[in-house]
């Protein structure tokens, strides 16, 4: 099915995510100029080194300051085709912004994410209003690449390939492309509309999207490997992992990514008014996200129960602080043992303390389980080697799997990281493919800020 026929561009306004305002609103022209002028224009800058995609951040900010929006956006996209969404969803506090030298000078660090959002948004608006394109794809070179999953990794890979004259064909089992940018990203960072606009832009360089097609079911994986010059595996992760404890099955217990998707995507979904309290199990960023979303949607009491301490939790400190601003609390050192039910209804989360061994009930109406997602790549794609945690094993530089014609990137190789990590995986895989064919790629394989 083609993208147009699947109807994924028509969105219902009746989605809960529309209730979330932007946590960091878009800059106006003057706000962006003022912030851009603050940048010191560091040489060999720490922010570049902190960015997984290595965007030449001082260069794109300088260009904003001079009003060179097109040049700024090009600098961003050449390094990171998902520059528009990563500007909004990246954990900048632990990446570029956290590395800004102003932190060391006790000044407010440059708001790099917001500037990147400004440059990419304005440039794409100008593409529409002025009729030019930032990038012109090269003529077709006859190469074809199949990409499995239409998430950030595949979209980035497909866009770079399309610009080089390769024909990318993306297979997506869902109706919607975009992956976690559509289904999972916190709605106070990015709504579906923004994510879909980015997908459309990426595809517009010449990628073919086929939604509702599941590799391994509708088409055999081996068939793709045979039919295409290369295959990129950007299949992400599977469904939410469960706890395997009594009372877990039944209404009122949610997998975190499932519930986030309902809030973000499903028309007409709403929280039952009876849900006054919720317990979230986990200590990662997904746990922090769903806890904050529930609190923002009016659930009066949201508690995160975590089996270790905040010092050890994988969730970011700034995200925990963000959730705490909406009244979310976190209780440490608790192991879940049972979802206590009264008839059909969830009554409490029963936990034991890892310190004292005592058992305690946390009364709640909902339980949300955010302890990770299944890895399914090893099971679905024959011949693809995975590590002990189910992550696809790839060459660090080329993202090649054991099969040199099969590349992989994104959550399926890292077990669940950021969009920006998927974006760099897609880019590196695309460049490695081009190199393997002896194709002169560029200028998109010039990583700004690095000496060639």
């Amino acid at each position: 099915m083609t993208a147009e026929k699947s109807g994924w561009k028509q969105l219902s306004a009746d989605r809960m995510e529309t209730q979330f305002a932007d946590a960091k609103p878009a800059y106006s022209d003057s706000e962006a100029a003022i912030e851009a002028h603050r940048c010191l224009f560091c040489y060999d800058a720490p922010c570049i080194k902190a960015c997984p995609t290595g965007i030449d951040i001082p260069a794109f900010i300088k260009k904003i300051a001079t009003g060179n929006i097109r040049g700024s956006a090009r600098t961003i996209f050449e390094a990171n085709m998902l520059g528009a969404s990563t500007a909004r969803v990246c954990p900048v506090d632990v990446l570029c912004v956290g590395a800004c030298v102003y932190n060391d000078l006790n000044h407010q660090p440059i708001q790099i994410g917001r500037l990147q959002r400004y440059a990419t948004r304005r440039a794409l608006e100008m593409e529409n209003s002025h009729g030019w394109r930032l990038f012109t794809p090269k003529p077709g070179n006859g190469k074809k690449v199949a990409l499995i999953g239409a998430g950030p990794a595949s979209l980035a890979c497909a866009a770079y390939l399309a610009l080089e004259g390769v024909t990318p064909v993306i297979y997506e089992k869902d109706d919607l492309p975009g992956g976690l940018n559509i289904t999972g990203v916190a709605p106070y960072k990015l709504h579906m509309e923004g994510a879909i606009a980015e997908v459309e832009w990426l595809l517009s360089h010449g990628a073919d999207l086929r939604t509702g097609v599941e590799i391994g079911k509708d088409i055999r994986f081996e068939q793709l490997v045979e039919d295409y010059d290369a295959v990129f595996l950007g299949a992400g992760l599977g469904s939410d992992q469960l706890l395997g404890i009594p009372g877990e099955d039944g209404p009122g217990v949610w997998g975190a990514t499932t519930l986030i998707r309902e809030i973000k995507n499903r028309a007409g979904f709403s929280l039952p008014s009876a849900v006054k309290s919720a317990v979230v199990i986990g200590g990662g960023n997904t746990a922090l996200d769903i806890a904050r979303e529930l609190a923002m949607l009016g659930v009066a009491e949201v508690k995160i129960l975590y089996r270790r301490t905040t010092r050890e939790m994988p969730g970011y400190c700034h995200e925990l602080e963000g959730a705490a601003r909406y009244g979310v609390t976190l209780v440490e050192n608790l192991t879940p043992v049972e979802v206590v039910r009264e008839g059909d209804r969830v009554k409490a989360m029963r936990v034991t303390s890892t310190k004292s061994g005592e058992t305690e009930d946390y009364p709640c109406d909902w339980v949300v389980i955010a302890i990770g997602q299944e890895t399914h790549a090893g099971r679905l794609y024959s011949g693809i080697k995975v590590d002990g945690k189910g992550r696809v094993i790839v060459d660090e530089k080329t993202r090649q799997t054991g099969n040199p014609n099969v590349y992989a990137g994104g959550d399926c190789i890292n077990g669940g990281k950021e969009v920006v990590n998927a974006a760099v995986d897609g880019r590196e895989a695309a460049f490695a493919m081009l190199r393997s064919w002896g194709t002169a790629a560029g200028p998109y394989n010039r990583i700004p800020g690095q000496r060639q």
Partner: protein
Amino acid sequence: MADLSIDMCGIKSPNPFWLASGPPTNSGEQVMRAFDAGWGGAVWKTLGDPIVNVSSRLGAVDYYGAKIMGLNNIELITDRPLEANFKEIYAVKKRYPGHAVVASLMVESKEEWREIVKRSEDAGADGLELNFGCPHGMCERGMGSSVGQEPKVLAEITSWVKEYASIPVLVKLTPNVGDILDPGVAAVEGGADGLSLINTVKSIIGVNLDNLVPLPAVGGESTQGGYCGPAVKPIAMHMLGALARDTRVTVPISGIGGISDWRDATEFLALGATSVQVCTAVMHGGYRIVEDMLDGLNFYLDDKGLSSVNELVGLAVPKFKEWGELDLNYNVIARIDAETCIGCQLCYVACLDGAHQCIHTNQGPCQAYHGKPDHGANPRTEVMPPEHHTAGNGAPVQVPFVDEDECIGCNLCSLVCPVPGCITMEQVPTTAGKESWNDRVARGLA
């Protein structure tokens, strides 16, 4: 508190801060508010045959987001009737007898000069300032800078005015000349009681890139204007210093050009100005800026143990030398404080690309050639290793380091460094005595 009052060739004012001739001194109502705010004097918006102005009139250069680094204007002299101006001068002097009111004048014929001098004196002005500086609009009519650029004409008109005037006469100079000493000395020879400078610098402030019309636009066209504001201050200070140290210039000088705060003013005073005049900074911030000027200057004088602002005048002049008199044996080198360095590496790239390749990182061998063949291939062993510390987020800070043998002491790194006090220029001890280029020439060595 120090005594701020001055007497500039007979023009007395309670402090050295005067408003320069321009929009802030266009009317009596404005000047009275300025005096209430603390200004010690005002040079009235230039009087002459009233003209017709254009719209628009001003343009500005912003710098890194800061507004009005430089301003230019194509406004002419007063567009109000002379009678109204003289009435208001009279009213101001009556209400503020202790403040300085100087009438800026610009007319053409000797007879016109005679008449306007008399009317200014009748109105009660404390002094006259002859506008030989305006570089736009009036110069095409044979006035303003077209006079200031012709020392003989300047001297002659000055002598006309001196013939008629009983109050002190200042000559305001244009910077649009090859050597400011020519018009400056000519004014003194013409009998001027004092000089004031600089007037504005001839300029085009910008071009509108949408319609390619220069700025400020008058319909679809523009013309050259006069540039002023913070950007012109160094130019003004050089011309002030050049006049102040010249023995032929025996009259006091009123300093003008980019003065925005007490620090600027104090620098002008130290370079030989008896009074200072301010226009652009008031156009930007209002008369109220004088409060900080008065405070700041007062505290500075106290700190320096000076009991009067007059003691400050000219203290920097003896230290303003010709290049040939400077000591060739004096050397400084850059020192980077690893503790406060934030790792921006602006010093590194500035030295690498814009100076003498003497600052290094541990990112690899330096390829720069210093005239010492071993430098590129074999980094010198005496080069200090880089010191590291960590930033607030725990990331290591890349601290560049200076090859002190190679550093030529140009200051550039310390100028680009955003951290106060991080890069200092330190004197290299030497046993050699002072030797200037002139000394070498005298000894037949050059």
